[in-house]
């Protein structure tokens, strides 16, 4: 025997661990050795560590209860620092070299937890304790009670640091998803795979085979674990099979979609991906999730060393670990006797089999005493079990007690779409009801089939059925030879009269007396029981506690278990880290970014960008010496109005509209008329929603007889396109119209200012004429530039200046901005960003997103007369609603502070001079503000009641959040060139 084995006091022979691969690990700072193939729990048990944590509420010493994901007690924190992972189940954590784990829920030493005083106070801390105790004084709750409770309660804690591990998500597709790789799952997978189905076989364990690895049974003349290994090898050799170990199917969702968490490199990622969240879409699913053993409640049934009987067999048979030197068994079914056989075969002393049943004829292993009709009423051992006391007063020495209260089929995934399980007396457990998720077949122990040969056959049939359902010819496979072990059970949930510290839910410290109290105080439905006592909550979601809990409730209330029912099982089956759901969507990957074709050039110019939806737009272009943004923006505005400026307007939505009925279509979707727009002309258009409010504005150019190009605001580009498609497909399918977005197709630049035409004339090809006569305001058309590039030119202006927008195919976008800037050098051209654009449009009184925010009407914007009354259009009828045409409606106005040194704040509200600042006196609000370098004053736009008749009025602009209350003068919203001389120039 190796030194590594010798150091492990409880390591026995056999099992599936690799004794040639010793692994060092730490628990609470102590160094231990285990083997490859161990879980943290099995390695701790091998080293005779029974005490691994403290309980949630009473801080009672707790050990390892199970050998799987149902574990309620052995929760530890694995890793340190940012890698710290709380509430890891020691029973599923695969051991690797160097793993460091810590116990949790303790104050001080694990063996001397200062919070264990709670255990002595337990009579005061029963169910509903919080609700009753912390009622008074109310003011104490938030500052005193809650912080204390939060500190005292809870499980492990997070590091508070950013998670350094990598996560991903992905999508898998198959004909059949098999969940669970025990006897049923393996046979189902073999049958389906041999029938030709594309299958995924998923199991949460790192070692596949389920209970086949945990039992000493014989299949086809070989040990059950060998049968599992050989079956998996057959499956692995098939191209149509994907085997996913360490993968929990945590939820069954609509349309054959299953959520799966693959723990690729759990706690040991070293920079590679730790976990992957998979969406699995499968036409059929075979649920072979097995069953979960449950405990029996009696006083002090939670001492370290008390363990479920099936788990004891797992540690002995799979891991080669004796959970104790002297094991007693307490059972209400034949399973306990199998445990005795396996322990005996492994050379572990069994001190007694205590069976709650009386009328059975079972033969114990040689020399093992049996107590039929026996019940355990108490146990001893402060930090670990020493003995058990029977109802006849006998004390039986034991450092491990194997308890079996029967097995509950793992029906959780059958209930994820509101399926209700049904009670089955024969197995004393709930089995899946008839309302399963679409395409799901349940097989084996998950379906209440509790013996080996039957499980193998049931799995085989399920696989064949799935093949048949999907139109495959089911493969003919001979069922493997195996025996059906004896399975008989007589329900026995708790030892009557042994209620004190008789735990049902080990994770939440809920005992029999709490259930009784809940019933006594009127919380009698299972859902109320859960909320009042916390039974079935937290990380294990009551996998082993729910059924005993509701059975005890049924007993107390005099109902049957079937009448009592279960709580609802919801996803996830086991906890899924939020990080796995996020996958790679963090940091740069959180969301995509859209860049305009001039981005690279603008970046080189030092542009400051702003997020506009997914777009990054240049906000301003700082020059050397400019120390704050206003300097840059003022300069850009002044330079543009003085000579020429260029702004990238690629982000505006562009929609290509073609068809014989395109004009009629536009006439319907725009409130103003488009039927008579000539070819080669652009028109400003206002689009209303069906409710009569303004949805968006923009321009539409007519390029040909049946060809138009619409522009939308950047923000509404997608929304308008979607709206147009809805109109086209649903409202007027008879119209001959085709739409496609060309936002991406063109790089578009606004060239604005008195020298705009001169600049462009340097770039257009010979033969093109963009003089005011040939290409007047609102003209549009194709134009050849820069030696033959086919561009589109629009004579439109947002700034109020003589302006053009030139669109070139995006491939030329970068070259175009460079060419424009080079050509503009002689005019002192300046690029300008969205801030200068905003200043100029406010100076001009053009509405934008702030003014058309979805709550305003055309009339309010001063565009009421654009809404044609002589044709039908979307929104026309409801725009006539009395409330929308009232005389004292809000109307767009301009405003400037009386004291021109004062800034304005957007969102301020208008209050009359002398009126108190209350909502009743609110007359309107400021929508947009800017500093006008021309007027040398802040200016703004806003809505105020009867605004058109109030130019010259002085009101207050009040912003309580900004702490401002100043006088402003109302005026026309057109601050600059109200006659439009510039843009027609």
């Amino acid at each position, binding site marked *: 025997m190796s030194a590594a084995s010798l150091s492990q006091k409880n390591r026995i022979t056999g099992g599936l661990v690799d004794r040639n691969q010793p692994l060092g690990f730490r628990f609470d700072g102590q160094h231990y050795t285990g083997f490859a193939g161990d879980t943290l729990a099995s390695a701790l048990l091998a080293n005779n560590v029974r005490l691994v944590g403290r309980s949630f509420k009473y801080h009672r010493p707790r050990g390892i209860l199970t050998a799987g994901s149902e574990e309620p007690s052995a929760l530890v924190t694995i890793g340190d620092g940012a890698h710290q992972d709380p509430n890891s189940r020691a029973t599923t954590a695969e051991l690797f070299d160097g793993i460091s784990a810590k116990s949790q829920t303790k104050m001080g030493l694990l063996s001397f937890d200062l919070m264990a005083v709670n255990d002595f106070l337990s009579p005061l801390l029963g169910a509903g304790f919080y609700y009753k105790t912390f009622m008074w004084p109310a003011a104490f709750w938030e500052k005193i009670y809650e912080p204390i409770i939060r500190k005292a309660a809870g499980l492990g804690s997070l590091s508070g640091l950013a998670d350094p591990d990598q996560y991903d998500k992905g999508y898998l597709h198959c004909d059949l998803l098999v969940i669970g790789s025990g006897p049923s799952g393996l046979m189902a997978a073999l049958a389906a795979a041999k029938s030709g189905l594309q299958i995924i076989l998923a199991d949460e364990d790192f070692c596949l085979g389920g209970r086949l690895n945990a039992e000493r049974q014989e299949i086809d003349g070989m040990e059950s674990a060998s049968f599992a290994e050989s079956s998996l090898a057959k499956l692995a050799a098939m191209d149509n099979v994907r085997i996913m170990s360490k993968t929990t199917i945590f939820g069954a969702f609509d349309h054959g979609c299953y959520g799966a968490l693959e723990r690729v490199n759990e706690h040991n990622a070293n920079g590679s991906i730790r976990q992957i969240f998979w969406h699995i879409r499968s036409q059929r699913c075979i649920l072979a999730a097995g069953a979960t053993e449950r405990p029996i409640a009696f006083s002090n049934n939670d001492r370290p060393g008390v363990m479920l009987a099936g788990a004891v067999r797992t540690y002995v048979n799979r891991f080669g670990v004796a959970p104790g030197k002297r094991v007693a068994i307490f059972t209400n079914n034949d399973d306990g006797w199998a445990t005795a056989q396996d322990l005996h075969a492994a050379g572990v002393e069994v001190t007694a089999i205590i069976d709650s049943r009386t009328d059975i004829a079972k033969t114990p292993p040689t020399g093992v005493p049996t107590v039929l009709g026996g019940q355990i009423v108490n146990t001893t051992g402060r930090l670990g079990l020493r003995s058990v006391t029977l109802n006849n007063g006998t004390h039986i020495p034991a450092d491990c007690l194997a308890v079996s209260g029967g097995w509950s089929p793992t029906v959780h995934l059958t209930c994820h779409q509101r399926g209700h399980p049904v009670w089955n007396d024969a197995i004393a457990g709930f089995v899946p009801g008839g309302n399963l998720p679409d395409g799901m077949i349940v097989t084996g122990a998950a379906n209440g089939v509790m013996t080996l040969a039957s499980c193998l056959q049931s799995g085989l049939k399920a696989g064949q059925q799935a093949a048949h359902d999907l139109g495959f010819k089911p493969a003919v496979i001979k069922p493997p030879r195996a025996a059906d072990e004896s399975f008989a059970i007589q329900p026995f949930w708790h030892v009557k009269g042994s209620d004190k510290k008789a735990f049902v839910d080990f994770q939440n410290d809920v005992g029999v007396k709490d259930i009784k109290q809940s019933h006594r105080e009127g919380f009698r439905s299972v859902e109320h029981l859960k909320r009042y006592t916390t039974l079935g909550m937290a990380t294990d979601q009551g996998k082993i506690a729910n059924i005993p809990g509701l059975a005890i409730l049924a007993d107390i209330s005099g109902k049957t278990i079937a009448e009592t029912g279960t709580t609802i099982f919801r996803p996830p089956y086991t906890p899924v880290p939020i990080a796995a759901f996020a996958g790679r969507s963090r940091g740069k990957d959180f969301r*995509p970014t859209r860049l305009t074709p001039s981005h690279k050039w603008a970046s080189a110019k030092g542009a400051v960008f702003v997020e506009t939806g997914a777009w990054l737009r240049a906000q301003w272009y700082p020059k050397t010496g400019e120390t704050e943004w206003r300097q840059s923006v003022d300069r850009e505005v002044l330079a543009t109005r003085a000579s020429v400026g260029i702004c990238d307007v690629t982000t505006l939505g562009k929609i290509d509209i073609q068809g014989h009925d395109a004009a009629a279509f536009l006439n319907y979707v725009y409130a103003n008329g488009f039927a008579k727009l000539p070819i080669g002309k652009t028109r400003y258009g206002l689009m209303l929603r069906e409710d009569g409010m303004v949805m968006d504005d923009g321009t539409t150019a007519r390029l040909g007889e049946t060809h138009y190009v619409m522009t939308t605001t950047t923000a509404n580009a997608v929304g308008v396109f979607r709206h147009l498609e809805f109109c086209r497909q649903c409202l007027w399918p008879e119209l001959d119209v*085709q739409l496609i977005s060309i936002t*991406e197709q063109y790089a578009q630049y606004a060239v604005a200012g008195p020298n705009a035409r001169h600049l462009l004339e340097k770039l257009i090809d010979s033969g093109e004429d963009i003089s005011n006569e040939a290409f007047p305001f609102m003209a549009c058309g194709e134009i050849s530039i820069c030696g033959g590039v086919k561009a589109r030119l629009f004579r439109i202006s947002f700034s109020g200046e003589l302006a053009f927008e030139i669109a070139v195919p995006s491939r030329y976008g970068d070259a175009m901005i460079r060419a424009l800037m080079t050509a503009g050098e002689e005019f002192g051209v300046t690029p300008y960003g969205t801030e200068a654009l905003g200043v100029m449009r406010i100076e001009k009184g053009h509405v934008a997103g702030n003014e058309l925010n979805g709550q305003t009407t055309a009339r309010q914007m001063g565009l009421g007369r654009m809404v044609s009354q002589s044709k039908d259009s979307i929104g026309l009828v409801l725009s006539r609603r009395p409330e929308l045409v009232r005389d004292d409606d809000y109307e767009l106005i301009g405003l400037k502070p009386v004291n021109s040194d004062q800034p304005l704040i957007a969102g301020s509200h208008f209050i009359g001079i002398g009126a108190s600042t209350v909502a009743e006196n609110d007359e309107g609000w400021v929508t947009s503000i800017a500093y006008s370098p021309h007027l040398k004053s802040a200016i703004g736009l806003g809505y105020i009641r009867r605004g058109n008749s109030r130019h010259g009025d002085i009101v207050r602009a009040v912003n309580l959040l900004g702490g401002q209350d100043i006088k402003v003068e109302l005026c026309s919203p057109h601050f600059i060139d109200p006659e439009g001389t510039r843009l027609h120039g």
Partner: protein
Amino acid sequence: MAKSAPMSKTPPSLTAQSPLGGYEMITGGTSLIEITSLSMVSVAPLAGSQTAFQTAMAKLFKTGKNGSPKPKATMALDRSGKPRCILMPSAQNHWFLCFDDDGTNPIDAAKALLGKSLSKQMAMTDQSDSWVILALSGFYSRQTLARICPIDCSASAMPIGTTARASMEHLGAIITRRPDEGDHQPCFWLLSARSSAASFLHAIIGSPPFRN
């Protein structure tokens, strides 16, 4: 637009750039290469022209009666057997026609492919500059897709020639399976918007085998 007297000067010429500058990455027997030499025109038959279009497409692409391309028949060949154009269904009654960019205006080239008469019955829009196209091919290409593409890209679910729209990492995308490359390795074209091409690329190469 009115023509004026020729101007004496010569404006600068413009240099074209592809969305990702001709990106190319080959790793682990899997390659990701930007397709840069393609013209792409959206084609939608106008009212009353669906039948004429489908007949023409059936002839050009050997499509089924419903106008949808038959697998493996999305590439139309010219008389000498050279690839002529590719047809990808993009929406109901809507297709993308792709062909080599030989410098001809894409709309003019598409009209030449469809013929004068049929062209008049089509709404055609140049989309050549709207998309980034990345060819993903090789042994691990399906593993890459499994991390970003929610639809089933297996050989049986997506025969050669199949086109589908999908959302990949919050980006609208089109995936089309191209003919296998040497040694029966699968090849997919992934299309997404030009403006977010860098994000799209980042998403793809964040997947194996490029990530590792």
